[in-house]
């Protein structure tokens, strides 16, 4: 699954740790999602989408 996490994070000037804190996960989790090593669960995808104020489809898309 592809995602725009790094891009959206950069626009807001958030570090991985900032996004991790907003979504209540570890920074490693954000890193693994960004690098495509891990696909988040649906609840976490909703949390990430809420943190950016976007819908899941605007952030994640199937490859």
């Amino acid at each position, binding site marked *: 699954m592809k995602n725009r996490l790094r891009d959206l*994070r950069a626009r807001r000037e958030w*570090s991985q740790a900032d996004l991790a804190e907003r979504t209540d996960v*570890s920074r*490693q989790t954000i890193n693994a999602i960004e690098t495509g090593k891990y696909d988040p669960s649906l609840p976490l995808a909703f949390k990430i989408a809420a943190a950016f104020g976007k819908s899941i489809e605007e952030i994640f898309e199937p490859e």
Partner: protein
Amino acid sequence: MNSSNDGATWWQAALMICGQTKAEQRNLRSVWIWSLIWAASLLAVAAWLPHLEGPFAWLPALLPAALSIPVLLSHVRFIREADEFMRKVQLDGIAIGFATGSFFCMGYFMLELVGAPRLPIVIAVVPLVLGWAIGSFFVAYRHR
């Protein structure tokens, strides 16, 4: 604030002390503390037991086993309260450790059948723990 990947160093990955949530840090601290207490009790009892005789030897002999309960409970709590990816990392490490220990035990059993020296069963804990530690380190380092 920045947009870079502020990854942990190899030793931070090894000790899992960088990037965790507050709950993970708290639970991990508990795991470390109980593990150290258990290890200290094991070493102390192993050194002390040869000097004891009779029923008085049973109580200290059971101490490490009793202290392994909070170690186990703290580790279970850490895994249950870890976020979904960290749980996956931990379970990967445990799987590597279990596989290493199992394959060592079965493999060495075969060697014993053809004449290798018989080892005490407690030796099995060495590849189990080493496999778990090394497996956890490599998985944590890969995703640091």
